[in-house]
């Protein structure tokens, strides 16, 4: 064996191993071979863990449908990582997941990738039970791709011992936050101001409540108003300079905001409904008896606007058990018992209209406020390019409100990027 031949041999061996590698990649097989009609539900977050509400709902289904029992494949806590886990399986066309917990902003991406079964044939059942906002978030290109499961919306939390009436405009909120914060020696407003998706959600709530739009209705044209965007960003920048925003606003996510408010260090907080129960149950919290929730303010003082969150259940296009999976997602969306469990056994906002009309829940402050807020809650556009748009908005608008870039330029940057996504 001569040296060059040896090299060729090694190279060949390497090349060989490279070509066979893709063929060796396991194409994600679920438990279908063994179990017949078993279903797997890929969903994440705290409630997917043992004891969580998703688990209890899965158990309820399995009891009622012993032929097609469902088990949860617990995905990570963070939405981005959940999406990545699902994407890995779906890109390999694996049948490991039958039901997918799809965040309201993934609908477009998933449907364009042909990862979801269309639910047009069961649209009637879902439409008559479910609120319009969540239904819109499960729709892309005029077609229904998932059955809404749970919803989410932003609340304004305020200190009843420091503020008599919740403010109705953002200017008023800042005026009160600065004054009371100074008097009490605490921060004004805490929210989600760190550079991540949550900041985009918060910024959109300011922007929408000042009359701004991103796209037209069928998302074929950009309607981004750079003037409004600049105005809103400059307001936020000013609010930070004036001390309306609590210290650490620009590094806070949901939990940092909740901790700050819960320990009595802020006058106002923008957060999701989940924080309500946690603050109330905290014996150590100085504010547990002294806070209340209200709709988010707007710039005009009229009505309220909140960004819509939540999850829809989709049927995987690669599932071996599509019929049963479809039955499950419709059941989870429309069954009153299931939807009520979400509200009563966990602070997860349901999507079924009937739960919000339920007399038993009329006294529940979270449910009644949700009933008020959700009809005006707006989904972020569930476009396939939403993640790119969100990253671009974070990069442009975050430095702008922190005084490291010009709001006018940042708004123009967002406008140009939005235009590039529909071309």
């Amino acid at each position, binding site marked *: *064996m001569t040296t060059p031949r*040896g090299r060729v041999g*090694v190279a060949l*061996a*390497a090349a060989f*191993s*490279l070509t066979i*590698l893709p063929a060796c990649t396991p194409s994600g097989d679920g438990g279908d071979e063994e179990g017949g009609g078993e279903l797997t539900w890929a969903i994440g977050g705290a409630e997917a863990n043992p004891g969580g509400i998703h688990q209890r709902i899965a158990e309820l289904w399995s009891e009622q449908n012993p032929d097609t029992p469902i088990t949860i494949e617990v995905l990570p806590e963070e939405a*981005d990582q959940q999406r*990545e886990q699902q*994407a890995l399986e779906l*890109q390999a066309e694996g049948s490991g997941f039958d039901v997918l917990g799809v965040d309201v902003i993934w609908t477009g*991406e998933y449907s*364009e*990738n042909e990862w979801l079964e269309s639910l047009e044939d069961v649209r009637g059942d879902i439409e008559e039970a479910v609120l319009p906002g969540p239904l819109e978030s499960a729709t892309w290109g005029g077609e229904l791709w998932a059955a809404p499961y749970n919803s989410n919306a932003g609340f304004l939390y305020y200190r009843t011992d420091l503020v008599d009436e919740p403010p109705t405009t953002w200017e008023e909120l800042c005026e009160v936050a600065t004054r009371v914060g100074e008097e009490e020696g605490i921060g004004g407003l805490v929210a989600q101001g*760190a*550079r*991540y998706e949550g900041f985009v959600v918060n910024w959109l709530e300011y922007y929408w409540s000042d009359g701004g739009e991103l796209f037209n209705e069928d998302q074929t044209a950009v309607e981004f108003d750079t003037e409004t965007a600049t105005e809103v960003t400059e307001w936020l920048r000013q609010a930070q300079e004036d001390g309306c925003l609590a*210290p*650490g*606003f*620009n*590094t*806070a996510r949901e939990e*940092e905001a909740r*901790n*700050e408010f819960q320990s009595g*260090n802020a006058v106002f907080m923008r957060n999701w409904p989940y924080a309500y129960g946690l603050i109330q149950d905290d014996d150590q919290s100085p504010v547990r008896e002294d806070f209340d929730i209200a709709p988010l303010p707007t710039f005009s003082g009229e009505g309220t606007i909140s960004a819509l969150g939540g999850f829809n259940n989709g049927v995987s296009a690669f599932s071996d058990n599509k019929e049963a999976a479809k039955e499950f997602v419709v059941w989870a969306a429309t069954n009153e018992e299931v939807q009520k469990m979400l509200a009563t056994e966990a602070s997860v906002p349901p999507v079924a209209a009937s739960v919000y009309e339920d007399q038993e829940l009329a006294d529940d402050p979270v449910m009644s406020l949700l009933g008020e807020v959700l009809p005006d809650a707006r989904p972020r556009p569930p476009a*396939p*390019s939403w*993640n*790119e748009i969100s*990253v671009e908005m974070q*990069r442009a608008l*975050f430095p702008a409100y*922190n005084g*490291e870039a010009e709001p006018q330029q940042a708004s123009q940057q967002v406008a140009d990027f939005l235009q590039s996504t529909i071309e």
Partner: protein
Amino acid sequence: MTEVSEETSTSPAPAPGRSRGRRRGSGLSEVALARVFVTPAILLMALVALFPVVYAAVLSMQDYTRRTHQGFAGFDNYVQALGDGRFWDSLVFTFVFTVTSVAFEFVIGLGFALLMNQAFRGRGITRAAILVPWVIPTVIAAQMWFFMFNVTPGFINTVFGLGNFNWLGQGGWAAFAVVFADVWKTSPFVALLLLAGLQTIPGELYESARVDGASMFQRFWLVTLPLLKPAILVALLFRTVEALRVYDLPQVMTGGAFGTESLSILVQQYVVQTPDPGYGAALSTLTFILVLGVGMIFVKMLGKELVLGGEQ
């Protein structure tokens, strides 16, 4: 494998009579045998190390956005990357991070190593205490330092009475916090490598230096440092290459805000988050070339050092 063991057993003990077999055995043995033995390792390396690199390079020449493949793109992704302000911003941060963190880690690590090399009461406990940060997983250390620096709960501000100083929420200080956490985390690693080097220096050299009247500083400068040079180069090589790939610390502590976006964060954003695998692969290939280049400079210096050391 059985064939191989047959040959190895025949070659050292010349079989009587069958000369053809013996010639074949001795002809194959040295070089060919080495190749046979090395092949599985090379294949394994090719599979786990070479394949991803080659795959990324192939991917970087594709127009591949949002998981839809749109064909061959040539060098478009590279042209886009080199014209992208974000690439240069993250390159600058990555370099600043690497230079400052490695410099501090080296100085502190050397101090620790010299300390740990002394014989004194409580040396075991000192060694253990110095190594604790290295044992903590980086993500956990990063989360811990996030809590320490962040306004809420704000341990550092409380301890030093700094009020609401926003370490992680303004330019400059955010980068400082990330470098600080990395120095805390990785100085023990440098110390460990240097300590191993220190222990190979024979005691007689110090004795004769002392006899020749060398001061403590001279002993350090003229005996310790030159003999420690290979260990220092190895430590710097490891640290520099790792610092150039930094992802976890800035990701957890700042999310890349306020000019703390490293190259790897940018790569992750395009490969995983948006996803734009073609462009992301181009960025990761550029990062690879950069790390490879820096690594090769070190290896060259190290090779020279070893050869020179051998000649002396």
